[in-house]
């Protein structure tokens, strides 16, 4: 199975981090992450980096040492496009606490702005909002995540929706799309499950493939005055043991996962 759209990467001219600035047409986030396949390699980030295409790919750094790794990566591979995944997805979001504002070595809880700025200072091309994990059917938490993200007034921010795998099922995907459509920021989906392997769940693999359904949903969204689609999808693997690539989902046996970026609705 091949997703023809994703199989032909968008040849963006922006292969290196770009200062935040008003760009004509595509949004800043589209320009820097659009069409790239991001690799998440965990503790093998530095050894994997030389094999990552600077033009068509990128990396996602995660874990408590991500900021430190970012400094090394930025120094050794200055052209590398990367994002820093916040640890927030490991904590349950709630209506009262949609964002998880915690930072290592910080005496007081940081502000959202501080957390985002620290990612950018570390060299990330965009800032990933520290949203909590949205449990299955917890619409109030999902909307609270959206509400909190809407208050982030920067155009380099990505809203990750760390959500239970079953949000991609027929009962819930409509609401997930409706919420994502309202986002002022580009949306990244990170799917996970509270128990076991999300891909082993009934409909798990189909759930990942359901991003095509997401794209259809996004395509029906209102268009910006420039005629460009307002929304895009960024599919992020919620697990580290499986390889996600285009429309095929296969066990890789390695600790790496591939993040497929689909900015296609133009």
């Amino acid at each position: 199975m091949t997703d023809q759209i994703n199989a032909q990467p968008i040849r963006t001219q922006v292969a290196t981090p770009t200062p935040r600035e008003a760009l004509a047409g595509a949004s800043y986030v589209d320009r820097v992450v659009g069409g790239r396949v991001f690799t998440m390699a965990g503790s093998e980030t530095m050894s994997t980096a030389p094999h990552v295409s600077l033009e068509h790919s990128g990396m996602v750094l995660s874990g408590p040492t991500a900021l430190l790794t970012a400094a090394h990566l930025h120094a050794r591979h200055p052209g590398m496009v990367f994002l820093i995944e916040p640890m927030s997805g490991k904590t349950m979001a709630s209506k009262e606490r949609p964002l998880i504002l915690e930072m290592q070595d910080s005496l007081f809880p940081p502000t959202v702005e501080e957390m985002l700025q620290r990612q950018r200072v570390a060299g990330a091309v965009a800032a990933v909002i520290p949203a909590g994990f949205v449990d299955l059917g917890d619409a109030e938490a999902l909307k609270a995540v959206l509400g909190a993200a809407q208050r982030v007034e920067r155009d380099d921010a990505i809203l990750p929706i760390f959500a239970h795998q079953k949000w991609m099922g027929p009962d819930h995907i409509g609401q997930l799309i409706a919420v994502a459509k309202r986002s002022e920021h580009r949306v990244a989906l990170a799917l996970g499950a509270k128990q076991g392997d999300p891909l082993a769940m009934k409909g798990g693999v189909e759930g990942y493939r359901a991003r095509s359904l997401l794209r259809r949903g996004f395509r029906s969204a209102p268009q910006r005055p420039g005629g460009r689609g307002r929304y895009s999808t960024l599919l992020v693997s919620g697990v580290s043991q499986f390889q996600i690539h285009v429309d095929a989902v296969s066990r890789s046996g390695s600790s790496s996962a591939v993040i497929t970026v689909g900015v296609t609705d133009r």
Partner: protein
Amino acid sequence: MLGTVRVARGLTQAELAKSSGVSQAVLSKAESGLVSLDEARLAAVADVLGAPAGLLTLPVDEGAVPYVFHRKRSTLPLSVANRLRAELEWLHLQVAGVVAGEVPVGLARHPLPPDGFESPEEIAREVRASLGVTTGPVMDLVASLEAAGVVVIKRPLGSERIDAMVSWPEAHRPVVLLGDHIPPDRQRFSLAHELAHAVMHQVPSESQEAEADRFAAEFLMPAQVVRGDLSRGPVTVPALAQLKSKWRVSIAALLRRAWDLDVISDGRYRQLNIELSRAGYRSIEPVVLVDEVPALMGDLVSKRLELGESVADIARDAFLNEEEFADLYLRRAAA
């Protein structure tokens, strides 16, 4: 209402014509409103139908045509579905005549937005709050609905292929017609399912049944609380049977809830379903719940009688013959 009453009585035009002596052609025109029956013919038809003559000449309220919901709707004979629809339409007149504004409707419509931004679960939580059910199980669903002005009528439906039906026409109150053949646990879920239709659905859709089930599950077993109960220990049939007493829903409904909330895996869900089938619990479940009995209509009739009105007066208001009214709202209510 001639055609509606005829269908509610389960008669065809030909059968009514034969019994009443009024030609089928005339009946057909009368039902369409093209001609009016003279006094003698009207009396003959009313006599066969066992209905007040005044009811038969009432215009049909087009807005009161109800939806019929059933889990195996396709297996329900059309004639039965039509009869029950007509019965429900007539029931609205009976309810309006008896209740007469005594109990205000404390329930609000909340249609699902077409873009899916709101979920049935969210609406279920709102409705729970509006009915004063703050947390935990709904102890007496029928009583909660009646307190909100929803009329629940429980009687034989003439078919076991349908559990319940509901309609909430504009300018009327919601009326639920509930079959008396279903066990209490199933009755509660059916009632919550019909409540969902009343609140969320004004226009039929392909997903309406699944949406109503999701509403009913959240309404009776709110995720925030039931998840803790289901996660407290291993999910087994005996554990679910214990929870059945608390949550007052079927073991099957609790099992499905555990799977929907990701408390148990797909494999465990399949395994427990097989266990339920092997034990025969698909037909008859252990742990019998207390039946919930509607009381609103009976109470209102009693109140009016205490205030000095006669059975004949109230029956006339309800567009029923006195004997049938007494049977439906006095004898059955007392039983």
